[in-house]
């Protein structure tokens, strides 16, 4: 493995004994990960450069990408999915993460009673499978079942009810909010752990200086948990651009109505594996996957090389 030589070089340059322990620490993870994940994925992405011509798998260079961006239909599907995906992401950033931070801040209130109960309750949706989440929310939002019309009637807002999941204007927002409901536990947990990690001395020092309450949160705690907020942002980004299951279970593989909830993940699934009478197209599927991969890679690289280096870290 080339990693090993890298370490030796590094050791040589630094004139230190070979640091075999680095290799030992890395080896198990790298081995399993490379064999079971990376190699199969490379095998798939490789397909994006091939297509079937006259029944033979032929190298077509960037031909598939030309089709994806050049052919009116493919391009329309792709841009539609990308646009929806950005909306999906924006809703998560604007709704899920602020709520998650707020919940974590409240949960970390000193001497809060029942904090474990709250935490478990709020985290519970995150534990549920998409099968349950999709199923139960379809029922709740169903105009037939009457749960949400009934609840809205209780607060006098029944006239505002509409079959959200069935309308092109509201379906994507509804699905995004279901996803927010399901995943708000993740930012909450990460921020909560980060907040608990702040030593008491720091807080006590702040309180001695008269910094308490909200201003303590904004001035002391928030900067200290900034790295964790960075993590949740990038996790949200990656998660949202890989999302598939929820749209699939709630709206089906065709991401109706009128493809208004189609995101990159559902477009990819339909193309790669096929759906109903549509046969799977491995080459075009791999092409979409490659583009998705590049988009996410760009985001993660931005985080790793720009954001992460600028965030100040504090060691306790």
């Amino acid at each position, binding site marked *: 493995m080339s990693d090993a030589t*890298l*370490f030796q070089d590094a050791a040589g340059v630094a004139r230190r004994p070979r640091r075999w*322990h680095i290799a030992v620490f*890395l080896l198990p*993870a790298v081995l*399993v*990960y490379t*064999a*079971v*994940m*990376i*190699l*199969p*994925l490379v*095998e*798939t992405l490789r397909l994006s450069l091939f297509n079937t011509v006259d029944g033979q798998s032929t190298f077509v260079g960037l031909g598939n990408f030309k089709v994806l961006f050049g052919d009116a239909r493919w391009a329309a599907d792709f841009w539609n999915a990308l646009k929806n995906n950005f909306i999906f992401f924006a809703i998560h950033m604007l709704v899920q993460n602020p*709520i998650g931070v707020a919940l974590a801040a*409240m949960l970390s*209130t*000193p*001497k*809060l009673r*029942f904090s474990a109960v*709250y935490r*478990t*309750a*709020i*985290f*519970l*949706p995150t*534990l*549920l*499978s*998409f*099968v*349950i989440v999709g199923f*139960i929310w379809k*029922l*709740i939002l169903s105009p037939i*079942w009457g*749960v949400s019309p009934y609840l809205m009637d209780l607060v006098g807002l029944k006239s505002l009810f509409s079959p959200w999941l069935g309308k092109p204007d509201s379906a994507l927002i509804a699905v995004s909010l279901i996803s927010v*409901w399901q995943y708000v536990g*993740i930012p909450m*947990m990460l921020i909560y*752990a980060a907040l*608990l*990690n702040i*030593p*008491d001395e720091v807080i*006590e020092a702040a309180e001695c200086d008269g910094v308490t*309450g909200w201003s303590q949160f904004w001035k002391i705690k928030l900067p200290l948990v900034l790295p964790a907020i960075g993590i949740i942002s990038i*996790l949200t980004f990656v998660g949202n651009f890989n999302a*598939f299951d929820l749209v699939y279970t709630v709206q089906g593989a065709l991401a109706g109505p009128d493809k208004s909830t189609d995101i990159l993940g559902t477009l990819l699934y339909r193309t790669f594996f096929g759906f109903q009478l549509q046969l799977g197209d491995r080459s075009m599927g791999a092409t979409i*996957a490659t583009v*998705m*991969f590049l988009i996410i890679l760009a985001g*993660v690289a931005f985080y*790793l090389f720009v954001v992460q280096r600028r965030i100040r870290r504090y*060691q*306790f």
Partner: protein
Amino acid sequence: MLPRARISFSRMALVHLALVAYALVSLFPVFLTLINSVKSRNAIFRNPMQLPTAETFDLVGYATVLKQGDFASYFQNSMIVTVVAIALVLLFGAMAAFALSEYRFRGNSLMGLYLALGIMIPIRLGTVAILQGMVATGLVNTLTALILVYTAQGIPLAVFILSEFMRTVSDDLKNAGRIDGLSEYAIFFRLVLPLVRPAMATVAVFTMIPIWNDLWFPLILAPGEATKTVTLGAQMFIGQFVTNWNAVLAALSLAILPVLVLYLAFSRQLIRGITSGAVK
């Protein structure tokens, strides 16, 4: 401590109010699933919000689920796969994260990026090649196949989160350990690991969710009766033309329990890690 007293009663009440309100939003759909799983089909539809009464109470869903498949064995399979995979992810992930966050060596950033690649492409795309590999090694229809896939799938996120947390572990502590003559392995296992326990618990919980709820790989790699997982078993009741609501709700309710238990197990670990004072 005087300043603490300033957190007034009314503020505490507001915090409770907000948390209770959000907890209700979280729990309501789950509650709805549970109460309707023990109601008759007519009652589910006529009045979904009503608690089961003597008249509408009906365990037919659970009866169907328990009759249709060997759910005890499905649970066992899900448990084995989830627990073993989490253990491997935590161990391998923490080791790699330590190497990346502790040592400066050439290719460190590159290795970090390499290990992060996995969170950028859904592993599902590698299905065909993975399946071919499993067929070649004879692992199809074994839990080992699932464990391998989930371990690989979980490692990137574990490394990502753990290395972030490991950077906050004090260098003085580690250097003190080195001066005391501890080996690098001892520093990792005895000094660092205990300190990042909250993060480990967090990673465990995050890793567990997609594993427990995954439908795809059990379907492809281990669809056999002997290796079926709970989620795959529950899927049986969502058909093409017939959806057996009672059975679906019952199966889904049953599937919530074990994952909740697992979560609580890790959650206690998380609290213990924090309260042991190791962090401070």
